[in-house]
């Protein structure tokens, strides 16, 4: 707890020691007494609480409070810095497990399959992920490679997860949701910080940070290095799966030209070991190669905000990033430039308008290997888009939000993504909302340009009767169109009972023109002799999904809070063509029908906290993964002001579990997840 740092005035009571009221102990019997303690939590006691604890208090009757953070008419979950810490998460995907409707499956020491509302795969491509507005998905296969974006988690202010299409404001590809990781202002991270973690699994993590004033503003520099060992291969073969990474980053916030400039950037290197089955050109069969995916990346992100005399606000952003990946499948070298501006017009009458423009260009070179090549090694793609959104106050309780995005991209031309939302404050503590939106996912480069060759051990009898190795080949074509989605959503957010909070959202999605593969030809080729099963990427799949997501919390006593989440999804995929049905089954069977978490946060003593998370996931029949229940627990003890010791256990219920199996290209392995126990020491000084 920071409230008892050296900068607290000496004469004032340090928040931990209170002059009145019982401070209840750690014994189990005290659990009953906790209830008694809460009985005398009358108004006076809050004046003795430390600031950090006050920020944790859930307040009743807050709806009448003049609101600035508008209740979004959407299925939004926010993970605060404290939520992330208390879950014992050491990576962003681990923290995302707490959000209903988001599927997270670890497939390797540094690899995860993360998706929202179905369609999970290691190359899950319907979720837009951003850090401070910088998109971190790889346009090569339109998915997020998580290992290369590992941040100092103490630098994260919050993670906002919007399930459902955020199409109107953010980029295309936000078909099933948007995750925005927001980092803290550098003024909030001044001073020095160090955190060391070590244990089984998490072999070592070292995080360092220093911040302070610079000119008229503030800045910080952070460094992180980690090494993590994964489990064995899901098929039982031994696997030496290790993830190592190192990064250096900075952030500066300063007034500039009458506005505020935030500049951030960083450089990092990440290596994950892989063992992949590649196409062997000599035998047309399988060659197993152990190697690694090595990423070197750097970025610069500048944002300038300015308040207009009329009351409106302007924001300009420029982002440049460079990524170089060396892997067994091939090398990718990519440079990306993203420029955007938006203008929030001062409210006029009932209307609050916001509009923006964005220009993005990507220069990407892909090196050829026997497993893949692009029709052109190097390609430059550009996208120009604009959006407009109007929030109309129909009455003082009813808001209507209309918006649309228009974008033009290299692959598929013009896309329109309109949406309409309604937010209705039915009663002071209850809000209902509904929305209809259209979102679009543009094809990835692989789906348009790529020629992929897979390795199998299968054979078919050839023309002479001798068995020929089967080589599946998939080609991208210019005919591939964007896939689209119409989403119907509705939800409730409010406080049904004192001390509780509930958010429920329901959705029905109609996915059209989902990209799959269709077999067009079977050829016999020579040197080496083989049977080529040629398919093309095509929009031969469609899907509907219906589901519900629930989040609830209950401040049971002053020191104990319970949080739970649950999601259900019924995903129905249809495929046209000879293999369409198989592909559809593979997608459906990798989405769990049910998921849930139950968390408890217990402030045992003023300086001792115990947090536990119980996680349950339904089976993934197409991946051969059975239903699973897992338990994480974390004990944190503030030994001295600014210094904290933690003991965390993850996946405590099983020595080893399989969370996913990938059969897609590229195959990021597929390793089990092991039970891990680790200790951390953290100091702020």
């Amino acid at each position, binding site marked *: 707890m920071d409230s008892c740092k050296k900068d607290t005035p000496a004469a004032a009571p340090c928040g931990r020691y209170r002059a009145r009221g019982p401070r209840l102990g750690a014994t189990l019997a005290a659990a009953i007494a906790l209830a008694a*303690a809460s009985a005398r939590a009358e108004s006076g006691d809050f004046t003795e609480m430390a600031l950090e604890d006050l920020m944790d208090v859930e307040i009743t009757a807050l709806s009448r409070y003049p609101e600035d953070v508008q209740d979004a008419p959407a299925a939004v979950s926010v993970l605060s810095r404290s939520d992330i810490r208390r879950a014992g998460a050491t990576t962003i995907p681990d923290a995302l497990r707490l959000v209903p409707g988001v599927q997270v499956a670890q497939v390797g020491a540094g690899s995860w399959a993360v998706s929202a509302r179905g369609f999970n795969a290691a190359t899950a491509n319907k979720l837009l992920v951003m850090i401070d507005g910088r998109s971190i998905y790889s346009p090569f296969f339109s998915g997020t490679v998580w290992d290369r974006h590992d941040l100092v988690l103490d630098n994260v202010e919050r993670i906002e997860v919007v399930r459902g299409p955020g199409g109107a404001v953010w980029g295309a590809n936000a078909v099933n949701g948007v995750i925005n990781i927001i980092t803290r202002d550098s003024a909030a991270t001044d*001073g020095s910080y160090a955190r060391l973690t070590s244990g089984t699994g998490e072999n070592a993590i070292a995080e360092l940070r220093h911040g302070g004033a610079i000119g008229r503003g503030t800045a910080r520099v952070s460094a992180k290095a980690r090494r993590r060992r994964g489990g064995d291969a899901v098929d039982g073969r031994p696997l030496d799966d290790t993830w190592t990474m190192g990064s250096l980053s900075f952030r500066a916030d300063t007034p500039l030209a009458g*506005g505020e400039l935030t500049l951030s950037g960083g450089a990092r290197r990440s290596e994950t070991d892989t063992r992949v089955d590649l196409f062997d050109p000599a035998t047309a069969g399988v060659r197993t190669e152990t190697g690694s995916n090595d990423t070197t990346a750097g970025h610069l992100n500048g944002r300038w905000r300015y*308040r207009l005399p009329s009351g409106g606000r302007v924001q300009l952003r420029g982002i440049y990033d460079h990524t170089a990946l060396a892997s067994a499948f091939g090398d990718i070298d990519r440079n990306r430039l993203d420029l955007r501006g938006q203008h929030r017009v001062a409210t006029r009458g009932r209307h609050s308008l916001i509009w923006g423009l964005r220009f993005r260009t990507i220069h990407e070179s892909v090196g050829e290997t026997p497993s893949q090549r692009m029709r052109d090694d190097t390609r430059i793609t550009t996208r120009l888009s604009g959006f407009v959104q109007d929030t109309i106050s129909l009455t003082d309780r009813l808001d209507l939000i209309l918006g649309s995005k228009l974008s033009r991209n290299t692959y598929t031309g013009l896309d329109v993504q309109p949406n309409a939302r309604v937010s209705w404050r039915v009663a002071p503590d209850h809000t209902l909302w509904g929305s209809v939106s259209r979102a679009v996912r543009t094809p990835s480069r692989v789906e348009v340009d790529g020629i992929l060759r897979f390795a199998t051990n299968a054979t078919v009898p050839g023309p002479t009767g001798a068995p020929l190795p089967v080589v599946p080949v998939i080609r991208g074509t210019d005919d591939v169109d964007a896939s689209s989605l119409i989403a119907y959503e509705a939800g409730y957010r409010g406080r049904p009972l*004192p001390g509780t909070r509930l958010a429920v959202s329901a959705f029905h999605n109609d996915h059209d023109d989902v990209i799959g593969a269709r077999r067009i030809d079977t050829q016999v080729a020579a040197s080496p002799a083989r049977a080529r099963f040629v398919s093309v990427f095509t929009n031969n799949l469609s899907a509907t999904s219906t589901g519900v997501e629930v989040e609830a919390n209950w401040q049971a006593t002053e020191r104990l809070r319970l949080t739970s989440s649950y999601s259900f999804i019924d995903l129905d995929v249809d495929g046209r063509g000879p293999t369409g049905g198989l592909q559809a089954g593979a997608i459906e069977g990798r989405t769990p029908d049910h998921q849930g978490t139950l968390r408890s946060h217990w402030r045992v003593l003023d300086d001792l906290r115990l947090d536990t998370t119980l996680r349950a996931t339904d089976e993934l029949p197409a991946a051969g993964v059975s239903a699973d229940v897992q338990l994480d627990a974390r004990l944190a003890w503030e030994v001295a002001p600014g210094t904290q010791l933690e003991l965390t256990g993850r996946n405590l219920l099983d020595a080893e579990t399989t969370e996913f199996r990938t059969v897609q290209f590229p195959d990021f392995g597929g390793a089990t997840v092991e039970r891990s126990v680790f200790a951390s020491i953290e100091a702020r000084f």
Partner: protein
Amino acid sequence: MRCRAPPPVRSLRRRAAGRTRCAAVAGAVLAGAGASAEAASLDAVKAGFVFNFTKFVSWPAREDEAGQVRLCFERGSISPEAYRELDGKTVRGTTVHTRTVKGAAGELGACDLAVFAAGTPPAASVRRAADRNGVLLIGNGLGFARGGGHIALMRRGDKLRFRVNLRALRRAGLEVRSGLLRLAEEVIRTGDG
């Protein structure tokens, strides 16, 4: 029912032992379980925030009114029952004094800190009075902070957060310790102030 708190003790074990005794005394009352949620009223928590802000802000030295920090609450900002809990508390050797004001610029000369009711930016006359007299302006909403108020409280879900307009605060001759900025949701360096 209250238990006297044990004196601050570093050893976890001794502290736990002291509290167990206390817990045994308080043990039977289960019915109180629901009461805490009820009692977390907005005004009580806001009063807690305001008191904490006084611990992190330092005012320019003043010859008159030494030994006192004067908190003024505009009618409608926080209920008197909530803020009167602060009367008589000490902050860095000075004693807290609370009173109700109408919120006009003219009254600010007699205040070290003023809490406003509305969410609109502070009037220019109020900002000038704050700059002249070194008054910490606390209000609600982003508009308050961006419009020259010093600290604005706002809602995020069911919890309160706050933002600091550092430039406006420094223009009034005040300084704020880094510990407060660390917890602020946003630190504003520009805008009116």
